[in-house]
């Protein structure tokens, strides 16, 4: 009975952490929308960046609670390790959002208007990707044999990462053809890289989930 309660608590806290990371991602999307919108005041950007940082701190706290809750559960040590690995990777998404927001604010950076659409597209795909990841993590706890049989859900995450890759490559090509100094072009490219890294992290988490499933395959 106690073990069952502890097991449920792990699942609840894991879900909480994923939701907190998702909140951070949503805050980051709002922040980016503001930075790509003409005329947004710097103070507004600062405030939105603060909200991203706040969401990241909450996600950090959730991660710690989730890791603490693993002690005393009936989960095997290898499963605990795998769950911690997935949770810390999810936390890296929040860290990445916070870092990118900070860099944009510190450097008072603005994406050129012509790139706004592509930048928002990247973030939108990444959010969709994360929503699928959230679903698969829940399935991992609740019905992993289904996920094992039909891993289309994980394939979808990879397909979206490929879409992000295509946008990223096109942006790089355009950026390095711009008529501006190399430092500025590199700065824009670096900002694009921050955004696309999030999609890569989500894909890596999907890979980790698939490995977890395959090693449990009878």
């Amino acid at each position, binding site marked *: 009975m106690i073990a069952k309660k502890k*097991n449920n608590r792990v699942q609840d806290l894991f879900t909480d952490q994923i939701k907190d990371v998702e909140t951070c991602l949503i805050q980051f999307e709002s922040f980016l929308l503001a930075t790509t919108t003409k005329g947004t005041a710097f103070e507004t950007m600062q405030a939105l960046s603060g909200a991203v940082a706040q969401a990241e701190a909450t996600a950090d706290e959730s991660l710690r609670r989730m890791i603490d809750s693993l002690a005393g559960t009936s989960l*095997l040590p*290898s499963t605990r390790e795998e769950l911690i690995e997935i949770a810390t990777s999810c936390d890296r998404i929040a860290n990445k959002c916070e870092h990118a927001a900070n860099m944009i604010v510190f450097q008072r950076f603005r994406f050129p208007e012509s790139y706004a659409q592509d930048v928002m597209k990247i973030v939108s795909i990444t959010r969709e990707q994360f929503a699928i990841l959230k679903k698969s993590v829940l399935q991992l*706890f609740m019905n992993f*044999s289904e996920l094992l049989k039909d891993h289309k859900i994980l394939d979808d995450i990879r397909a979206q990462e490929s879409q992000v890759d295509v946008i990223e490559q096109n942006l790089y090509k355009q950026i390095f053809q711009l008529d501006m100094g190399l430092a500025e072009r590199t700065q824009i490219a670096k900002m694009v890289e921050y955004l696309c890294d999030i999609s890569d992290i989500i894909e890596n988490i999907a890979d980790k989930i698939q490995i977890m499933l395959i090693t449990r*395959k*009878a």
Partner: protein
Amino acid sequence: MAIYLLLAAGLFMGWSLGTNDAANAFGTAVATRVVKYRTAVTIIAVLILAGAFLQGSGNIDKLAELATSNKVMAGQGEIDAALQDSSLMETLRLKSALKAFIIFACAGLTVFIMSYLKFPVSANQSITGAIIGWGLFHANYSDPEVLAENLPQIGKFASTWILNPLGAGIISFLLVFLFNRFLADRITTLHSYDKFVKIGYLASGAFASYSIGVNSSASVTALYYDANGANLLTNARLTAVIGGIAIAVGVLTFSKRVMMTVGSSIAEISQTDGFLVIIAMAITVLLMEKLMHIPVSTSQAVVGAVIGAGLTKGVKKVNFGVFKRIAIAWVSSPTVAGLLTYLVALATQAYFK
């Protein structure tokens, strides 16, 4: 009392068997940290003793039969004569115990040398090989009568080389197939999967430990047993329990390294297949004991079971390379032990003739 020091070779044999065979029961579980090492060795030690106490004495007679026809243990004629004349009994007791000491020392040395050289080795097969090696010198195998008496027994032992892994392979195949067909899909949550794996490893490891107690406890002390008093031990159950204690001490003192090595090499199969393989091994070993009254190699059974489990996924998925390794052990363990014992028999012929 000093005569009881001759038990040392059998106890050493039991100890080394314990350090090796524990890996077959809990190696994968410990190597993958499903079960803690301390928990595993406690379960193994207790259940080996339980197996030895409850059913361990079952195959003493069969091993004694092989040993008697190979002149390791006293024949009925010698015993009858000693029962008439008590002064002969002491000499007979000492000679029987000395021969048992030599056989176990040679088998033990074989296990030690081959383990040192990193060759796969089977303790049970080494004992059988040593008994036959002694017989090749003392029982005069060129005599058709002696040969006729021994051939069926040797054939029976040799047949276990095929029947043991084959049986384990078939049982393992069935267990894994049935599990995949009827049970795998019912385990839907991560927690239930982990719980299932943990209980599975504990139950299969406990069962395997019991089967090792039944199968091997007597084989490391049987040659010291004679119900009429013509050897060191006269109580069959006590003989098995002493063997069980020696094996348990091996498990408790020196099994970790072998457990980690064996466990990691078998861990390529899935976690659920892992404990089904151990159950198949334990069932086979107990069946062999029930049907053929012969102590068999648990390592052979494990290899057969691993291959059986692999076959459920198709022939291409099976690593038949493991066969090569175990085939070396099947041939080399009894051969080396036999040759070694033959040489010792040659060197000590003046005393025993």
